[in-house]
């Protein structure tokens, strides 16, 4: 069974690669991503309202640690194998330590289509994972430099569009609970998959644009963009298993680890590590890892979860 939203992505990709005139106005791209972020937050918040928050604390800590660790794992590879400049290696590492909300949404939709349960507090982890990698990236690039305007960084990270909408949605969902959400369900919940389909159509077009730079950066980046999620996915799945998560939960944990940011991190790096070439990290995260993840990665991470559970 093939998910229509993936086909929307492929339609956009083909349109972009064939240089069709098709494009979504920037304002619509904004609207779609706002709707997705709020919807994910709201859904997560409503679920959070149902369970004791304290029980989640250990998992939340572990996820934070993962967010700090992942970029450190790939940084030396980028520096010594990829031979990137320090700033570029640090910036790419930050992208891969963080998460892609679009990829998360695809994984959620993949599980929903198969009626596979997953722990509903996952959106909390999305919020948590957005941030640590950015701090690590800046530290890797600059050391503990006096130059870094940490106030600005904190502002950028904590008050960026993604965090505000995700966390805002979470809190609103958490306050009003399942009942309270009913009246806004038609927009935020019922339309979710359709909005995701349109969003992926546009992401396909954008990805096609990014692929133009592929040949310029060569084979290493392609390999990196595929191997990293394959490995990180296993790390995420293992962490999920460690916390006794369900098959669906492990699949999502794997997807979070495997996905690479293309919104919050590039914006933060552009301001804080300006000497890093944004085209390099976006080609990797958006031109390679994003399409890999939504087409092949998510099913792969699902088999990770099934395999690990079969071992247990």
């Amino acid at each position, binding site marked *: 069974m093939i998910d229509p939203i993936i086909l929307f992505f492929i339609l956009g990709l083909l349109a972009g690669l064939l240089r069709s005139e098709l494009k979504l106005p*920037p304002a619509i791209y904004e609207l779609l991503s706002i709707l997705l972020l709020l919807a994910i937050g709201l859904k997560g918040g409503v679920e959070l309202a149902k369970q004791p928050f304290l029980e989640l604390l250990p998992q939340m800590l572990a996820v934070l640690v993962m967010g700090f660790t992942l970029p450190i794992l790939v940084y030396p590879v980028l520096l010594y194998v990829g031979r990137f400049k320090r700033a570029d290696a640090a910036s790419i590492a930050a992208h891969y330590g963080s998460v892609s909300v679009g990829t998360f949404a695809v994984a959620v939709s993949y599980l929903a289509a198969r009626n596979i349960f997953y722990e509903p507090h996952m959106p909390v982890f999305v919020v948590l994972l957005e941030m640590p990698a950015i701090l690590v990236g800046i530290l890797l690039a600059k050391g503990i430099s006096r130059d870094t305007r940490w106030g600005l960084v904190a502002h950028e990270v904590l008050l960026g569009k993604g965090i505000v909408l995700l966390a805002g949605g979470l809190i609103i969902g958490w306050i009003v609970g399942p009942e309270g959400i009913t009246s806004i369900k038609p927009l935020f919940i019922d339309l979710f998959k359709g909005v995701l389909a349109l969003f992926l159509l546009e992401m396909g077009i*954008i990805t096609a*644009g990014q692929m133009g730079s592929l040949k310029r950066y060569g084979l290493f980046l392609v390999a990196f963009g595929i191997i990293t999620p394959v490995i990180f996915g296993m790390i995420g799945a293992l962490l999920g298993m460690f916390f006794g998560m369900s098959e669906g939960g492990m699949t999502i944990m794997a997807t979070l680890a495997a996905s690479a940011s293309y919104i919050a991190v590039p*914006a933060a790096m*552009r301001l804080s590590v*300006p*000497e890093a070439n*944004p085209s390099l990290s976006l080609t990797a995260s958006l031109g390679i890892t994003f399409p890999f993840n939504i087409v092949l990665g998510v099913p792969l991470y699902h088999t990770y979860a099934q395999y690990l559970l079969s071992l247990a």
Partner: protein
Amino acid sequence: MEDKSNIYKLMTIITEAAVENEVLNDLVKLGAKGYTSVDARGLGHHGVRSAAWGMSANVRIEVMDTEENVRKMAAAMKERYYRNYAMLIFLHDVEVVPHDDLDGVWD
């Protein structure tokens, strides 16, 4: 016909939307009394910037001020942004229609 005393410099900065706020803050700190921004897309040494999404969008900023102030701002912009950001700056003279009651308001 032209009134020399109303000649000011107009600086046009075309750069990444990602740094619009930073640039505008800097300009105001450097003494700009006004600016005008417009969404834009383009091509330059940093490749195609199609404005399809945030990271690929440009902005076209205009600042009108005295030649002296504009040159100071242009130098600061160049120093801070030219190396690492997609940015093009150009200047030319404009004759400003003045507010009579605000004489010398842009000096």
